[in-house]
């Protein structure tokens, strides 16, 4: 009997296929394409304490096999999320991951506290390249990751995921800092910092100058980072970055991911998560694999409930 479930911080996901924050809105839109409860979990659009308008357009640029985005965390704020978005999500039997960004450690803690009984997981975004305050500045130093994780850990008792930035020399140091501070899980990678220039108008294409690169183009980098982190930490890993088909997903799981998350692929294929789930299932059946954790190649660590 194959059992697709995986555990993160003691909580069960019915399968290892998640969708990534910022690429799935608050899930309403994709509910038109398939039943959301098919998913292992949903990471909703990153939220901040107060509503944010986001960055001035243009906000997207296609690059070879990827996209640059500069959304800048447009979101209705914590209260807006709880009042306007969460009720819809709660109609589905699917774990909800709240992705949060703060300007200060206090903001992160306050948000975690308020979200505690309303969602299933909290994902600390210490890695958004598209906002000036907070975000990535927390995410490139192990000490800051340690501090923010430790404080948020005190503020909540639901499983805590720390989402890492790939824009660092050694991502495994960041992962170890989060683990040491009490994180239940590491998710990676957020977008890589990229740039584009509008040569016709002789200026950077985005108002913010830099923007976040995602999509198939970054998959080899994301996979390497998942592998590196898997060599160093003993907590579960959610792998993401350019996953576009079931073969990519299996690569991430082999590299050490316990669950995988689909981001940019949702844009060009709204059915990507369910197609990938089906592919993983078929792969497991064909190869006589009972649980996703058996897919890992040695070097990756296996977790049990």
């Amino acid at each position, binding site marked *: 009997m194959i059992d697709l479930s995986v555990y993160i911080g003691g909580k069960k996901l019915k399968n290892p296929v998640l969708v990534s924050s*910022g*690429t*799935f*809105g608050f899930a*309403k*839109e*994709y509910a*038109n*394409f398939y039943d959301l409860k098919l998913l292992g979990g949903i990471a909703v*659009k990153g939220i901040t304490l107060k509503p944010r*308008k*986001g960055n001035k*357009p*243009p*906000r*997207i*640029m*296609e690059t*070879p*096999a*990827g*996209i640059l*985005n500069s*959304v800048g965390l*447009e979101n209705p704020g914590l209260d807006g999320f709880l009042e306007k978005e969460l009720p819809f999500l709660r109609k589905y039997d699917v774990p909800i991951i709240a992705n949060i960004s703060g300007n200060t450690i206090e903001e992160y803690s306050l948000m975690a506290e308020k979200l505690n009984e309303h969602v299933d997981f909290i994902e600390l975004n210490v890695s958004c390249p598209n906002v000036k305050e907070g975000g990535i500045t927390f995410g490139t130093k192990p000490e800051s990751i340690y501090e923010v994780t430790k404080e948020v850990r005190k503020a909540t008792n639901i499983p805590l995921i720390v989402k890492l930035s790939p824009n660092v020399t050694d991502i495994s140091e960041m992962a170890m800092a989060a683990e040491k501070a009490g994180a239940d899980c590491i998710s990676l990678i957020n977008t890589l910092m990229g740039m584009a220039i509008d040569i016709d108008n002789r200026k950077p294409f985005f108002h913010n100058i830099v923007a976040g690169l995602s*999509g*198939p*183009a970054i998959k080899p980098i994301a996979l390497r980072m998942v592998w590196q982190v898997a060599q160093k930490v003993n907590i579960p890993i959610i792998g993401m970055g350019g996953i*576009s088909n079931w073969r990519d997903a299996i690569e991430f799981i082999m590299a050490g991911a316990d669950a995988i998350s689909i981001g*940019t692929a*949702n*844009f*060009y*294929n*709204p*059915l990507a998560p369910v197609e990938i789930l089906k592919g993983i299932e078929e792969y497991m059946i064909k190869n006589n694999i009972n649980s996703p954790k058996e897919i890992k190649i040695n070097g990756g660590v296996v977790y049990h409930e």
Partner: protein
Amino acid sequence: MKREFCKILSNYEVADAVYKMVIESKSISKEALPGQFLHIKPSQNYDPLLRRPISICDLEQDKGRITLLYRVCGKGTSLFSGIKPGDYLDIMGPLGKGFPIFENKRTSIIGGGIGVAPLLYLSKRLKKADIYLGFKDEVYMIEEFMSCSDDIYIYTENGSRGSKGYPMEALEKNISFYDVVYACGPRKMLSAIKRLCEKNQVECYLSMEERMGCGIGACLVCACQSSNIEEYKKVCSDGPVFNSKEVSLDD
């Protein structure tokens, strides 16, 4: 709103770099409204990666046929131009909010260049709107528009067809005859039309363009400035058609 592999019935050049493509989809043509768009994948590989938004230009519900009109300007549209009848395209649609149909008001339609695309099916549905169309030099889809209305004004920049000049000039003269104006075209033209209509208290609907990711309201990349300075609108799901009062076109 669906994702479907649709069969291409025809695809050919109607003017320099402007193509007309007819696709078959019973389900999309059953639902689609004037001003809505399709989100079409140009390649099965990862470059180009994203879908391309293309407006519904015309529609024959009984035959399940949809006509698209597109200008080749980059990677995606040039792949479209290579599609042969019998091939299939991966299409999501119909998406977005279309033009509201006012059958008992005095309506006019104004389009510039490839911006005429979403206006043909609208013209058919409105039946008796006055139509103003402007082109650079070559004109296209003129006959189809003519069959929708007796009052049609054609302009070209160089005067090679119709009158020489811009359709805005004629609309400006006649603006007081209309209750509603529908427009699609270059941003500058939309901006001028918005000003003209608001000055004359004429209701005005604009079909807008922004680069898109998901096309369905989930990724927030297609932001355009709302008239409420505190927020952005999503072109893909709040639009692409907006009442001119909802949006700001100042940069």
